[in-house]
């Protein structure tokens, strides 16, 4: 049984880690941008960001004043049992979010959409969002927090099979150029593309592609992996860099995730994980131990399965 107290204290530690420590994979990617950027203004911006990450770590203060919207991704190993059950876990995550808001401190960002009610703790109706996934084995729970910033930089469009790859390319460019001007998307970013699924799944996949995969990771489908590299280069050849100044640094990496969709359509979403690509993960074991890491390891062969059965699924045998 995974103790609730370790879940909550780990979740609080994750909130602070995400807000303060830029993940290594994004940092390395941004350093590569710094090495190749020729635009003087764009290069200055990237240099300032690199110094900003140092300052955040040294002072233990949030890297960006805008908290974005802190949220949670929870993955259960198939054998995991949590003290207090799923309701206990959700309570722990809400408490950790509220406590880290005053503890770090983080700017309270979450308000009611109509009445603008602010609890000053980043908790409210449907906030923080909690998404779940499951893994075929394991007695652990993986907690990932993402503090996704940006009112800008995401878009959705229903494309059709006839729009083809060119249509995908075009919508990708539209989004990057539209939100890249004046740097509204706080690029260079990890660009996530969701292709297919139902409308809501398409948005979810694109967001997860940008926030839950590390820079340098590739989709297991070699043709999609090639598209990811092509799109990264395409984004960096727009002529735009950090803050929309002339340059070549728009895309630190591009990740594409797909889901089977309606036979008549080809929905597409684009998401940009900004200069403060804040994510942190920990695996918590039944003895209360927590192992921290920066790779959420969210997408797996299991999560991307396209068959009816998985391995030797015991369900059928049990039912007979």
């Amino acid at each position, binding site marked *: 049984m995974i103790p609730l107290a370790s879940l909550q204290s780990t979740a609080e530690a994750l909130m602070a880690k995400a807000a303060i420590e830029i993940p290594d994979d994004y940092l390395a990617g941004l350093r590569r941008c710094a090495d190749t950027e020729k635009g003087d*203004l764009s290069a*200055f*911006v990237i240099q300032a960001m690199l*110094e*900003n990450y140092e300052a955040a770590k040294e002072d233990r203060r949030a890297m960006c*004043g805008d908290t974005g919207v802190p949220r949670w991704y929870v993955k259960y190993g198939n054998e995991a049992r949590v003290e207090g059950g799923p309701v206990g876990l959700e309570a722990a995550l809400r408490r950790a979010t509220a406590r880290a808001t005053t503890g770090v401190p983080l700017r309270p960002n979450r308000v009611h959409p109509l009445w603008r009610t602010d609890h000053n703790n980043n908790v409210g109706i449907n906030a923080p969002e909690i998404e779940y996934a499951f893994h075929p084995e394991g007695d652990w729970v993986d907690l990932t927090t993402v503090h996704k910033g940006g009112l800008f930089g995401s878009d959705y469009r229903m494309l059709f099979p006839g*729009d083809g790859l060119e249509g995908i390319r075009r919508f990708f460019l539209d989004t990057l150029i539209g939100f890249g*001007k004046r740097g509204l998307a706080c690029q260079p970013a990890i660009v996530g593309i969701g292709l297919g699924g139902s409308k809501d799944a398409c948005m979810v996949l694109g967001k997860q592609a940008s926030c839950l995969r590390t820079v340098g990771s590739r989709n297991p489908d070699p043709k999609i992996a090639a598209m990811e590299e092509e799109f990264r280069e395409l984004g960096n050849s727009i002529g735009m860099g950090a803050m929309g100044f002339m340059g070549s640094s728009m895309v630190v990496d591009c990740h594409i995730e797909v889901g089977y969709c309606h036979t008549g359509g080809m929905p597409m979403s684009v998401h940009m994980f900004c200069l*403060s690509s804040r994510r942190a993960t920990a695996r918590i074991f039944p003895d209360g131990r927590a192992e921290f890491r920066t790779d959420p390891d969210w997408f797996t062969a299991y999560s991307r399965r396209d068959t009816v059965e998985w391995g030797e699924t015991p369900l059928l045998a049990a039912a007979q």
Partner: protein
Amino acid sequence: MAGPLKTVELNLPASREALAELEIGTVVYLNGRLFTAREGVYKRAIEDGAGMPAANVDLGTANFHCSPAAVIEPDGRFNVGAVTATASFRFAKWLDGWFKLSGCNIIIGKGGMTSEIYRDVFVPHGAIYLTTVGYGTGALLGRGIKDVPGVYWKDELGLAQAVWVLDVERFGPFIVESDLAGNSLFERENAKIAPGLARLYEGTRPATLRRYGETDDKTDEVI
């Protein structure tokens, strides 16, 4: 790596002569007093007729579009962590009234406004626009804050929308987005990038299903 940019330290309140020295693209660090104000403050001060929450000397004349990541400790002390600007274009409609009321001559924010607004509203009031950098340099900016001499309207507007007065030292970096002549750095950069865009779209055609209000002119601004 590209060459260094012209860098200036500016003391607040800034004189007109000091502002006249600044060209678009200059890097600026600030020393002195400034304050935060955004839509909540504009509404209350201008539309509701509440006026300014305090005198010029208490607030300064540089207005930062931001809400700090800050808490008021039980003993009344302020703990400011990181500060990051919020997108300014949404506040353009209040600015003429705001300049008259506040006497501000520096607006600090994210993303700037259009050069039309600069010429029509900023230039007559002798004001410039400084953009934050990144825009995520919240920790660097947080470091530059040496004191919080006051917070106004926190009960009326909440912590995020309240007026935070900040005494700063080598607070930055910022980049001059608009100078006293009303030029815009972002528009200059957009104009340089625009000619290359058509090439990227070669061989593609608009999506099968159109959307209302959509433009195919990639030189259009979204703000």
